[in-house]
């Protein structure tokens, strides 16, 4: 039986890169994702166990943190998304569950999302055509969930105005990418 060959969210075999003057849009495909939700009454244990794995405290609302191999961001009350390198943490959900055990609910999310990283000096100008959030007053470490062109997304600020990670539902990758390309084309 032939090995199954993976497709990217945009339907290619290699991640897509688009360059504009002042902006690069990169499809990111090498991350593993798993959600972690604290069990009712076990919030402390869950946090402690997570800290053990992440090497960092689970992030506050609307923020993300990096620790060791992992990045984590807040999704909702007592719920986080954990992110790690796919090759070395392909079974991230299992890994996470083995750590938190009964203190947390863990769900595989790796292929639920497509991700585009935006890098360059024009991030503010492009994103203000798409996104309701006040990014100009944002700081590195912000992690917000909102809608862009009718698509619900996570937006992580890595460097204000210069570097963002945008995660959207994988099935809508084409539409989300089109929206980014159109906005970039409008501005740049």
């Amino acid at each position, binding site marked *: *039986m*032939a*090995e*199954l*060959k*993976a*497709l*990217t969210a945009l*339907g290619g075999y290699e991640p897509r890169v688009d360059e504009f003057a002042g902006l690069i849009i990169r499809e990111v*495909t090498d991350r593993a994702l798993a*959600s972690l*939700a604290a*069990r*009712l*009454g076990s919030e402390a244990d869950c946090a402690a166990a997570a800290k053990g794995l992440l090497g960092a405290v689970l992030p506050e609302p609307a923020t993300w943190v990096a620790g060791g191999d992992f990045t984590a961001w807040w999704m909702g009350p*007592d*719920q986080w998304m954990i992110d790690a390198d796919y090759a070395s943490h392909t*079974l991230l959900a299992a890994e996470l569950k083995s750590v938190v055990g*009964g203190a947390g*609910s863990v*769900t*595989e*999310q*790796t*292929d*639920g*999302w497509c991700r585009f990283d935006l890098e360059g000096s024009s991030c503010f100008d492009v994103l*203000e*055509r798409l*996104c*309701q*959030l*006040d990014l*100009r*007053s944002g700081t590195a470490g912000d992690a917000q969930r909102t809608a862009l*062109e*009718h*698509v619900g997304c996570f937006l992580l600020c890595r460097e204000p105005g210069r570097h963002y990670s945008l995660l959207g*539902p*994988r*099935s*809508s*990758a*084409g*539409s*989300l990418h*089109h*929206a980014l390309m*159109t*906005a970039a*084309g*409008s501005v740049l």
Partner: protein
Amino acid sequence: MSDMTVNSGVAFTSDRAAKGTAKGQSHRLTGGLVERAKPLSFTFDGKTFQGFEGDTLASALMANGVKLMGRSFKYHRPRGVLTAGSEEPNALVELRSGARQEPNTRATVAELYDGLEAKSQNRWPSLEHDMLSINDKLSNFLTAGFYYKTFMWPKTFWEKLYEPIIRRAAGLGSASGEEDPDVYDKGFLHCDLLIIGAGPAGLAAALTAGRSGARVILTEEDFLLGGRLNAESFGLGDMSGMDWVGQTQAELAAMDNVRILPRCTVIGSYDHGVYGAVERLADHVLAPEPGKPRQILWRIYSKRALLCAGSTERPIAFENNDRPGIMLAGAMRAYANRWAVTPDQRVAIFTNNDDGHRTATDLIAKGVEVAAVVDTRADAPTVEGTELFAGAQVVDTKGKLGLEWIRIRTASGVTRDIPVGALGVSGGWNPNVHLTCHQRGKPEWREDIAAFVPAGDIPVGMSVAGAANGAFSTSAALRTGADSAVASLAALGFDVAPADLPEAEDAPVNVTPFWFVKEGKGRAWIDQQNDVTVKDVKLAHQENFRSVEHLKRYTTLGMATDQGKTSNMGGLAVMAELAGKEIPQIGTTIFRPPYTPVAMGTFGGRSRGKEFRPTRLTPSHKWAAENGATFVEVGQWLRAQWYEKPGETHWRQSVDREALATRSSVGICDVTTLGKIDVQGADAATFLNRIYANAFGKLAVGKVRYGLMLREDGICYDDGTAARFAEDHFVVTTTTANAVVVYRNMEFARQCLWPDLDVQIISTTEAWAQFAVAGPKSRDLLRKIVDADHDISNEAFPFMGCAEITVCGGVRARLFRISFSGEMAYEIAVPTRYGNAMMEALMEAGEAFGATPYGTEALGVMRIEKGHVTGNELNGTTTALNIGLGRMVSQKKDSIGTVNSRREGLNAEDALNLVGLKPVAATEPVVPGSHLMAETGEVHAKTDQGYVTSAAYSPHIGSSIGLGFLKNGSARMGERLRAVNPLQGQEVLVEVVSAHFIDPEGERLRG
């Protein structure tokens, strides 16, 4: 009378020509803010003209001596410009041509560009000779509301004769009828202080706020900042108003906390400091750059807003006050000072206030002859260089396509005719309160300035400065602008002092209200675009349409494209006088968004055509597209509907083949679109017990169960399966259509109804690519895919089993033994990235069995054959009883909808039951949407027995079959009925059968 026939224009032209101004621009004066070095050429009604950069279409036409620019809506009266701004009711043109044609464009705000094309509108055959000007002759018959009183006999004539004529005559410009080639963007801006309007007040506010470091957005409707400062001759401090504007703009531009948006109109004030604004990026050029937007709709989130929208001059109504050449005095002044043009070399002024005198003074300074200043005030101050008629009125005018003379009645009561080609009228100024009314603010009357000023519930966070708040002098505008900025920012914790401001004129407002000239039998216009006259207002009063809203609706006053910016006050004033009331007692109509009309494309933004809404693709979309799939929209998803094979000429061939192959061997279908929700927690089972009408507590790990959800009103809502992977872990599926709402309702139950249940949920719909593998050979196929260490024999993995396994050499997967087709079937899920490859692998593994991919059509055929319900049956009005699952609704436990499902109406004796329907003649179709009637008897709603919900051709039954709801249907097997479809003239004799056309005992499932 000879002097009356002098064409003043001629003498004028030669005079200017001598001074050697631009070719053809006979009415161009010296000075102004136009770039004489940048001549632009444009056409109006096919005739070519020249203007300068900095002109508007109106100023350029005026420069060329053109007065006649449009025709009115009803009487097709000849009209010229009334104003110099966005409040213009008369000078409306069709701008541009072809797909870019823009009807009803105001020449007064259309920036001139080289190659501009404009056509006059609402006239035939030409602007000069308009057949429908006959209406003007008939005007006595066409008074306000006349149409409510006639055109009623004979009855049929209204729609056949009168209305078509009226529709053709009505309307103004024409839309192109072609798709707009331009694109539009939307965007979102955030600020501490939004300053609306960059006149003296706005600029002073921006300087103040800018220096505080607060985030400031300054919007200006015009393409120049400065507002009235560009239209006035007086200076600020030791520099000209225009120079001060330039200097201020430069200082603001250097502040990175200030964003200046010229050509940007704030159109609406919405709840909680949200404003809509339209920025025009490419309306002043021939066409936008490819891919770049024509306009942007900005949604501005502001903590505070400061309205500095200035004021609008109001006319005085008098007989024949609508002739081309008659305009507002302030506009006449603006044309002379800013654009260096005059409508005529010989003009007069009619005013009730001092500001009108400024126009006279400025025009005289520009070398224009001001024949007279007619001032209604007996004590009017004199004006240098012209004759003042104090206590006088303009009582009539003449001139066919343009003003030729005015008739005045002097204080002493004698009339005099004065030949002039233009008349500037000033009835005083109205603060632009519009945005303060968008949230039901009610302006209040200020006697001292005889105008309404903002009051009542003005939008929270908004304050108003300058002329918009009744502070009319330049000095007061600057001061109140700066002070309001200080106050707004102080509320936000910014400590800032008002910017230092230049000396400026501080003239008091001297106005004596005067609204309309009583004398004269002719018509005096109040709303020039909609042709509403003083007489119409009188008639409305006479017929008891006296509230301001009745007046507006009965006469159409203020309902034209200018929304009454220059006419509402006049109407109110006349009504007040007739009713013997004060103006404030009559009230004012509500101003609503948008402030000025906005292209629909701007609101549409990028959500157009294929991008109207996002498109969701299934994991095997690529494979499907490469293998002849026809796609169908299922919500936002695109799903393969069928896969056409070479030689197949009709979709039915493909669908029949797919269904037959599946039942005889094995078929494969991408079912990823079904909602998948991961439910975990110690109380997960308890939670599902309450979400589903049927019991879930005892479901064993490794098993799947069908679940039915009810709404709290007891009606069926969604169905699906729940698979138990661990004591505290379920995976729930929903229908494709309800994935979002079921999730939302689970969150509601979890957070609002039972907050102390330990249950966590998250969607995994997108994370897994899921395929149905159905048919007698499905297990044989899967054996080649599933890694050997997983036993999927019937014994080890029976019907309704589920397991986490690996496939294709270690790829993690989930396997479910469930069936929608009625065959032995599985659903296998792999991480989405492998979905496309999985489809290939399944096809490859299935080659030996002739494995066949099937689409939604074959899926539908097989589910109908099996009697499974979908959205067509779960249509939001059906109960568990209706679909034959009444017994599933457990009465022993509490679940959503149980209580209300017991109501009488949901348990009627003759309740609808789901039945199968077969045509008596195998060749006849069962048509969904047909209604069921007894075999004989009347066909009428009263004899309706039910309806057909779904139907398809069943290649296995060899005929069309259907599902439907039939009164007491379970007890009527074998009965013959008519499925009537009068809509399409069909009537088919059908037999009532079990809804399970295939394998009613369900043996295949367990095989």
